[in-house]
């Protein structure tokens, strides 16, 4: 046996616990603190109810291409820096998601029902004149 460890927890262990906790708190501040208010424009992709990905559009360097799959169908999505998300191509029967075109502002979304995929924009600058909800 190389070394015999202590098997009972001691106060020094509490130090490790505190260190980890402090790290967690620091991370929480760093990661979550900046998200108050509206935050940066972010594309939130959910597949069958579960959040699959969040893409902060302002951080993209050039157009990003992503594919998402659900319900046996695959969507090819392009995302532009600073807004502009569209479904380029989908093999779903309805093609509603492709017809939706480009979304650019928080609150807008692209949905593919057969694939159960929702792409929604959140955050971004607050525009008081932008609609709260769109019908049609």
């Amino acid at each position, binding site marked *: 046996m190389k070394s015999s460890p202590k098997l009972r*927890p001691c106060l020094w262990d509490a130090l490790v616990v*505190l260190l980890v906790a402090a790290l967690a708190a620091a991370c929480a501040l760093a990661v979550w603190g900046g998200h108050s208010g509206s935050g940066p424009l972010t594309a939130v992709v959910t597949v069958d109810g579960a959040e699959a990905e969040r893409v902060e559009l302002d951080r993209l360097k050039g157009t990003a291409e992503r594919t998402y799959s659900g319900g046996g169908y695959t969507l090819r999505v392009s995302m532009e820096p600073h807004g502009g998300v569209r479904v380029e191509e989908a093999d779903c029967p309805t093609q509603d998601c492709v017809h939706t075109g480009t979304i650019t*502002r928080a609150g807008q979304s692209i949905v593919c029902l057969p694939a159960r995929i929702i792409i929604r924009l959140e955050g971004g600058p607050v525009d008081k004149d932008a609609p709260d909800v769109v019908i049609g």
Partner: protein
Amino acid sequence: MKRFAAAALAALMAAGLSGCGWQTVDPDEARESIQVIAMDTVMIFTTYGEKSTHADYLSEDEVRRLESLLSRTDSESVVSQLNNAGGLGISVGEEVGGLLAAAEEYSLATGGAFDITIAPVVSAWGFTEEENRVPSQEELDGLLALVGPEHVTLDADAAALTPGTQIDLGGIAKGYASDRVAEILKENNIPRATISLGGNVLAWGDRPDGTPWRVGIQDPQNADRADAYAGMLKLENAFAVTSGGYQRFFEADGRTYHHIIDPATGYPADSGLTSVTVVADCDWDEVDGRPGVGTMCDALSTALFVMGEEKALDFWRSGVYDFDLVLVTEDGRVVVTDGIANEFEASEESGYSYEVVS
């Protein structure tokens, strides 16, 4: 063991500490927004107030309940049971009975422009099967013989269809759902909310800043642009429902066929309109969870789209129902009735010409 307890305590405290960071929601605004796919559409429930989360999930449950009750594709639903009863009378329950009665009323009031028995014709065009085709005139003639409110017999909770007749409550289901959700908002003291059920919107209360909710009407000519509006409605406590041919369509032989079928011809309504938005007040005192203003707006938006501009405005002027209209025409005009002219904001970049009628 004491030390272990101390360590466990420290761990718990630390977890509690990091747990504090969990609450990232702005405490000034108890706001909850959920998105749900139901009734073949996307629904967004955004509610404010202490019980916002509760109200959102109650609403989702309610919508799912209605879907399983009214769906034509779910063979277990009451509507399917009635469609499959082969002409025999069955008990449909008070709720579906009430909806059938409401549907009959709107059917008669609109001279058949709204009709729940159009279902087999819509199916013939493939709008329920997702495999679109253009049916032959003979096929349509055969199906149209079984279309009309007289093919539904309703006696309180019991209903029967003429053999071969099929109904689809899709034309009022979302409107009725909005009436039900309004009841949930009322029961849970929700001060403000926007409820979007596909083309049906309920603007409940006002915005947190005290101004009316801004409801954009999708520009039918740019249906693929989510930020193109034919205009903006500033609404407080109101239902608004839009029907438009651009919402679901297919192309065959160079022609475009949309999903709103004119019961008179069996063909997609060709009335010169590209979208109809019906707006009506939502009086909190009158919200009781029964088919109400939301249901009415849903039925009328379809019917008035079929009728076309002239007939729709005549119907509005008749004053049978209390509502207002925003019509978008194929020739690039947006017609607003004077009851909501002050609540309507034109969209400058849209290129439409705007007119107010009285």
